[in-house]
């Protein structure tokens, strides 16, 4: 059983603050973390390894700093790690990113590919299904539970107010939700492995079988033309009075606005 988990290093967006004067993002001091849904995906892979025995590889596309999440994955128990990195891959949209990752994955053996549902910096949820499309395998999104039965995977797949129990033949790709599990901590032995015993494999442009027309800025069908902070709403009135006065005040306002 060979499992590949796609992980991404992201800024912890819950720590991002806006500069109150300029309205721009303060990026300094924002910690980089393994994307939470990806971490749940890695944990799911490691549990399958614990239960059935499996070889777990992690792969990420990004700059050299992204090695940090690969080392973290080693320390959690991953067996192999691949960094896909090249300036030619920069500015890729989801089409190009998924083309590159699918190209890299096609060099490896796999029965199961796990990605996070979405990354907290982009929130697109598109790269997983697009990788599956490029590889010509089924994808089951929004996995909240999963287990193996022979050469099939059984997934509880979440929708807004119901779930499906899906049975898919391997090889398949699933996208993991944070709800799937609570990821384990790194172990001391794992941390030792991460820095001494295990090596990160680095793949550059020449190592990845993918067309030039499908990578980077040129290979991206979408273009960001503008980014801007959200327009700030003008605050209304604020009062600090006693309980009685507060309740009366709200009541009067609701009547005035015909909201009662």
């Amino acid at each position, binding site marked *: 059983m060979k499992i590949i988990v796609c992980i991404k290093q992201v800024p912890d967006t819950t720590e991002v603050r806006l500069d109150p004067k300029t309205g721009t993002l303060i990026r300094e001091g924002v910690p980089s973390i393994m994307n939470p849904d990806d971490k749940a995906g890695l944990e799911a892979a490691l549990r399958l390894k614990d239960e059935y025995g499996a070889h777990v590889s992690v792969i990420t596309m990004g700059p050299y700093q992204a090695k940090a999440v690969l080392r973290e994955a080693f320390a959690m128990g991953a067996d192999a790690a691949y960094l896909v990195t090249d300036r030619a891959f920069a500015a890729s949209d989801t089409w190009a990113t998924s083309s590159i990752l699918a190209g890299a994955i096609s060099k490896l053996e796999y029965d199961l590919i796990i990605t996070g549902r979405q990354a907290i910096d982009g929130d697109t949820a598109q790269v997983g299904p*697009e990788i599956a499309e490029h590889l010509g395998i089924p994808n089951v999104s929004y996995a909240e539970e999963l287990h193996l039965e022979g050469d099939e995977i059984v997934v509880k797949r979440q929708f807004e107010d119901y779930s499906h129990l899906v049975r898919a033949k391997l090889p398949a790709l699933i996208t993991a939700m944070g709800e799937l599990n609570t990821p384990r901590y790194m172990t001391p032995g794992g941390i030792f492995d991460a820095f001494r015993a295990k090596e990160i494999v680095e793949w550059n442009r020449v190592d990845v079988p993918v067309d030039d027309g499908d990578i980077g800025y040129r290979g991206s069908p979408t273009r960001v033309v503008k980014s*801007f902070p*959200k327009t700030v709403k003008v605050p209304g009135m604020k009062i600090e009075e006693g309980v009685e006065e507060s309740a009366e005040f709200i009541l009067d306002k609701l009547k005035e606005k015909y909201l009662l």
Partner: protein
Amino acid sequence: MTIEDYQGIFTFAQQVRGELTPVSLELIGKARDLAQISDTEVGVILAGNNVAHLVKDLIAYGADRVILIEDAVLDEYRTEPYTQAVTAVIEAYKPEIMLFGATAIGRDLAPRVAGRLHTGLTADCTSLEIDPENNQFRMTRPAFGGNLMATIICPDHYPAMATVRPGVMVKELRDDSRKGEIVRFDYQFEENQNYFEVEEVIKKITQKIDIQDAKVLVAGGRGVGGEAGFELLQGLADALGGEIASSRAAVDAGWQPKERQVGQTGKTVRPSLYFACGISGAIQHLAGMEESDYIVAIDKNPDAPIFNVADLGIVGDLHRIVPLLTERILAERAG
């Protein structure tokens, strides 16, 4: 092929077991706006098993043409047969723009279709415009946990595709006198390696509520303190004929189910009246509710960011103000 070969604004009409998902009508409403600017038609793709009864609703809400694909393989949503169906319609009709709801179905289906057609897809858009000067389609979406907005174009690939956040676009008023064309689209489904089986449909046992439909929401956060605090909010919600909503903190604490969560990772709501009680106002929460018509915030902390978006901010103890307010409203209603 050039842009001239691509015409029409198309939408995917999501239905679940024969019932339209509300965002399907919101998409048609937006598509009508866009079609007016670029002087083209609104096409709606309706796929499913025994779903023809929905065609009249789609036309009444603004579809010029409904392309209907019915087949037993489309009974429960499955990625591959729906991808085949939608891709085939797009290849046959060549719309310039294709919109999906950013739902658990749309966000699974659209990337698969975009991958198959080799085109761009912009996720979870909250604003769509066509620049009347150059006819450029501009899609705007929140990124970075709702901290930043990005405007995205798809200049050289067709159709430009987007998933659109539910609850943001506005559907048209129903007009049963509207006329539209119905096309039955014949498609031979072929089972391939991408097919999977849906063995069971598991309904959630919690009572089905949709906070996106509520006119009044009484939302609580960490400052509510627990389930007892939420009972106070329930009293106010009942007095106002509203529903309870929740911040992420209150969901994470286990006080409220995920279905009631408002925010970037929850739902976007725009009720007539939104009470924010004990919610400090993290950006990710504000992203889901700041479009509400009238916002009342009650929080102890005078510096809470929620007060920056509130029309009426009350600095004080919600545990004392809410019960008294509830009492006053009930008295007012009684007479």
